[in-house]
């Protein structure tokens, strides 16, 4: 199974994204990261630290679980509903420029659910999307503003992102 990104490259990719965000944001007072459970949360935290280092100030970061907003919930059998994770957004998102962070952008449905969820928390000034990997095959009109790597894939393949905080290593793997 090919590893298309190893720990090193992921690190450099995140650093590059952090710089891009800093440049395009014209100041960090208004920005905040919200990571989508599960691995998006860890990526968001790392980005928040990286951007904060560049800007020499602390950037807020929150965690968002979108399970309850999914459009496929009622297709599961009784009791086999997906596990609901923790949502933790301790700051107000009103008038903030939110950077929504996820590991893989695929059909776009997760992001659609995340937008619905996020907008319950307030009225941000803007929402931009940051993803580590864009594997194509969108089913909804969703586009990422910051992409770590574009990975064309076929529908039969799956993309596994692993992060140190959850899986003990940083890598991106494509599986058949």
């Amino acid at each position, binding site marked *: 199974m090919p590893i298309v990104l190893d720990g090193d490259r992921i690190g450099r990719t995140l650093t590059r994204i952090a710089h891009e965000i800093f440049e395009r944001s014209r100041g960090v007072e208004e920005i905040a990261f919200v990571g989508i459970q599960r691995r998006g949360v860890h990526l968001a935290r790392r980005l928040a630290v990286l951007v904060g280092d560049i800007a020499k100030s602390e950037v807020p970061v929150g965690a968002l*679980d979108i*399970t*309850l*907003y999914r459009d496929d*919930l*009622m*297709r*599961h*059998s*009784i*009791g*086999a*509903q997906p*596990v*609901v*994770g*923790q*949502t*933790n957004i301790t700051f107000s998102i009103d008038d903030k420029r939110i950077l929504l962070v996820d590991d893989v952008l695929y059909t776009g449905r997760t992001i659609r659910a995340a937008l*619905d*969820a996020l907008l*319950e*928390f*307030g009225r941000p000034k803007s929402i931009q999307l940051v993803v580590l990997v864009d594997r194509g095959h969108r089913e909804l009109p969703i586009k990422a503003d910051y992409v770590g790597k574009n990975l064309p894939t076929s529908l039969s393949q799956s993309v596994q992102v692993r992060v140190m905080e959850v899986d003990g290593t940083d890598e991106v793997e494509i599986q058949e």
Partner: protein
Amino acid sequence: MKKDLLSIDDLSADEIYRVLETATAMREIGERPIKKVPTLRGKTVVNLFYEPSTRTRTSFEIAEKRLSADTLNIAVAASSVLKGETLADTAMNIEAMSPDMIVLRHSSSGAGHLLSRICRSRIINAGDGLHEHPTQALLDAFTIRQHKREIAGLKVAIIGDLMHSRVLRSNVLLLTKLGAHVFVSGPPTLVPRGIEQLGVTVAATIDEAVRDADVVMMLRIQQERMQGAYFPSLREYFNLFGMTEERVRRARRDVIIMHPGPMNRGVEIASEVADGPYSVILEQVANGVAVRMAVLYLLAGGVEHEAAA
């Protein structure tokens, strides 16, 4: 998982943990500015309450609304029962409108079982006669875990009118399933025959039950029980079985005192204890919404409705 939640026996230990973990996530929704998620949008939940109940019904209603379900409250007055529409007929009439779930509270044990044989909707038992009140036991377990982390190995004392308590039965089933040591105590006239077969120890005295307990749960005593000659007076009941500060001291230092409510102050529990530092009674109420949201969420799945038996 089974289509209905009629008894704690319908849930395996794993499924109980799933409910409790999901409830943790559901709690957070109550802390948001917009206390709503679209999860049960377009689902209809009927609250069919044959017994009056503000606490449980409101708790279910809030839980349903937070999940964006359409709720329908039917409070059946005693008079309309007397006028003759049977539970079976009421159920079939409601079923004709295709609700997704029915939350039933009724004064007859097994009413939910009858309903589940008639209706394809998911049935949630909110209290049937003397039998069970599963969501109460689940929220009690949730509350215990918030303070004690794990239920296995805890000594839990349940005290009061054991015979007429559906909260007792559900709690005994849940706590023993998760590995707690349950001690029950009450007037001998109110101890159900063969209760040890459920895996509890019937304490000879209330002090034996309370000694070194991690959790003490008080059950409500009803005035009518005096008519049945179960015990002579509320005064004597309080003397022998009431939870006083002095009795609390026999438990562990970090004991928590619980009560399913509504309380009779000065009968099963002294006011100082109910309002005291060990009491988690109000937390139980707060946790009720989250736990019921978890149950509604987990039972809502499935495109195919299973056929009624």
